[in-house]
């Protein structure tokens, strides 16, 4: 009998880490993977809400072929991308700016910080209702005060471009605090030696911000950016309540479009197909951002 090379005895403790993350994986499967697989499965059927699923006919890839040529889906995606672009850019600029202004312990800074965080605490439905009535053409405060400036009352929620502006504004109001909190936490964790060193080296205020501070919180900004991007594709309540997607489709983000397909026009199978498309888009975008700048891999920051 040839001698088999000595093998290391199997160390059971190597399994412990997997054991500890097993519950989390189970939850993820139940709450994430399973619904996604179910959505993919549903997208191959033509199921009307109210009828039993067992009577729904199998239609193969028909929902997908219909979706690819459907101009409404692409218009909705384009609206979502434009919405994402405007809200994220302005939110990041505002959020970082506010954080930079308020990170120093100046008098009253903590009061301002509390006030600026408040919009994040309000339920999205309440936010939507408040802003809807602020923007109301007949009784809204915005038109009322614009009247003092001599501006004619605008039909904010009834005009395609004004309605888009309205939802962008509401989103900025609601989510800038999010960027603000994250950036302020990051800034306060920066080692002061680096900043002192840069000041000694003669960096002025401008250079300190853009060449020292911001690069050090880059990974935090990337995470915030990623979360906001995913949120843009998830956003539903605010649009639903403020405009319902109208006028026309000018404020119908992809998630709202899916909702309308599923419940307003009863096409659950088709809505599932569009949902699959949404998952793919978000996945690709996240992948792109993470390959450009993976916060987990960089070692040069806090």
């Amino acid at each position, binding site marked *: 009998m040839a001698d088999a090379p000595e093998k290391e005895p199997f160390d059971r403790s190597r399994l412990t880490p997997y054991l500890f993350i097993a519950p989390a994986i189970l939850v993820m499967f139940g709450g994430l993977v399973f619904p996604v697989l179910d959505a993919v499965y549903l997208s191959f059927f033509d199921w*009307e*809400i*109210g*009828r*039993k699923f067992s009577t729904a006919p199998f239609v193969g890839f028909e929902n997908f072929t219909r979706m690819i040529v459907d101009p*409404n889906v692409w218009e909705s995606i384009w609206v979502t991308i434009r919405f994402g672009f405007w809200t994220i850019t302005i939110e990041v600029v505002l959020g970082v700016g506010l954080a930079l202004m308020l990170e120093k312990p100046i008098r009253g800074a903590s009061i301002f910080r509390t006030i600026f965080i408040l919009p994040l605490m309000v339920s999205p439905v309440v936010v939507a209702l408040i802003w809807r009535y602020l923007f*109301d*053409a*007949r009784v809204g405060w915005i038109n009322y005060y614009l009247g003092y400036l001599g501006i004619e*009352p605008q*039909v*904010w*929620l*009834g*005009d*395609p471009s004004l*309605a888009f502006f309205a939802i962008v504004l509401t989103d900025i109001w609601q989510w800038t605090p999010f960027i603000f909190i994250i950036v302020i936490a990051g800034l306060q964790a920066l080692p002061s030696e680096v900043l002192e060193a840069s000041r000694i080296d003669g960096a002025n205020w401008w250079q300190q911000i853009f060449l020292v501070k911001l690069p050090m919180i880059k990974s935090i900004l990337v995470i915030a950016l990623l979360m906001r991007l995913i949120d843009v594709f998830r956003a539903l309540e605010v649009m639903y309540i403020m*405009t*319902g*997607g*109208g*006028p*026309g*489709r000018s404020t119908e983000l992809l998630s709202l479009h899916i909702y*309308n397909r599923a*419940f*307003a*026009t*009863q096409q659950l199978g088709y809505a599932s197909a569009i949902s699959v498309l949404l998952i793919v888009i978000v996945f690709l975008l996240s992948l792109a951002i993470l390959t450009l700048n993976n916060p987990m891999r960089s070692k040069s920051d806090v």
Partner: protein
Amino acid sequence: MNMRRYVATLPALALGATLSLGSALANPYEKYAGETIVVSWPALSHYQNAETLVEEFMEETGIEVEIDALQYLKLRDSQLLEMSKDEGEYDVVVWVVMWKGEYVSKGLLTPLSQFYTSGSLVDPEYDIDDIADAYLQNGGVVGGKKGYLPGKSGALYGIPFGAETSILAYRKDIFEEQGLEPPATYDELRAAMAKLGEAGIPAMTSRGATGHQVTAGWLLHLAPLGGKIFDDQWNPVINSPEAVEAATVMREITQTGPNGIPSYGFSEASAAFLQGDAAMYLDTLKIAAMSRDPKLSKIDGKVGFALHPTGSRCGSETGGFAMGIPANSLKQEAAFLFIQYMTNKAGDQRMVDLGGDPIRISTLTNPENIAKFPEYPVVAEQLPCADADWRPLIPEWNELNLDVLGQALTKVITTDDPIQPIMDEANEQARAIMERAGYYAWANYRQ
């Protein structure tokens, strides 16, 4: 014990049994006292006023009622979900008439005939013929000609409650100031709107929000101007000259009306009139009761009522709501008793006293009511003209309403683009939907 005494007690027992049986059925509600039924209906003023009557029902019958009130367009989502389950929570559902086709085609409602065969449930004094025919056919009968019109193949699934037709309401004071007469035809209406526009007064308020609202606004003008959505072979005719004219009228109304029509749903459009921001209101007759409600209206006492203006024909809307019983409810008999109570002669009169809208001819023509509610004679005169084919109440209507008409008409009222191409494109999209739903299968088969 001897046999004779035993036999002698039998007749006494039998008599006692019959007597007790007789007294058990003395009260039709007794068997259901203590049950709780859940009602799903819209959060509109008629139903809010009905809550008092519901409390009276609970006291009189001992049946508990829980009300789930939602904004009326959101009702459908929650009702569909509830009715698709094996056992549902809702025992009474109130639907917008345009959903009746969908609900019945999916088998979600119990036909009322099932209850009308019971001797103990049906109130012999109910007098179903007294209910305005336009309301009953439009809201409750499903499966007739073309699926939604009256016809021998139709069956009754619901009783109208909060049903409506359309009338013209106008500000008597503004009209007097401007020297205008309430318009009787569409030409007179457009002339009045132009004159009010020149005087700087917002002429007519209208629904205009994308989707169901703007389509409802347009449909009000389509019927009297002689248009239809489909012809008898289900070909869409949304681009007919009459339809384009109705769209032109919508554009004129938006341009001469109060600010914000393209964002107006039903509440906003009514609020504009009730708060004094528009001179005319052409929509549901519910505006009359609303104009007398001090919580909603600033113009009580200044409102006049007239018939829906005519074009090439008279054709007012048929719409509103009807009440029925889901097939998966566990308390259908109690639900039926509830529906009967709310809509019998006493119930209808009580609704009117509480500020709601009547469904019975006897209520509309009662002289006491006419003295209190000046719009009743107008409504009674309007009802024979209510167009049963005002809107195709087919299951596909939702998609047509929201995706095709709701989008096209938004373009009509928010831009100045020529209307005919917009309606032509809408017509093509409508045809594609009908094709996908299989409406041309017979026509193609017979070719």
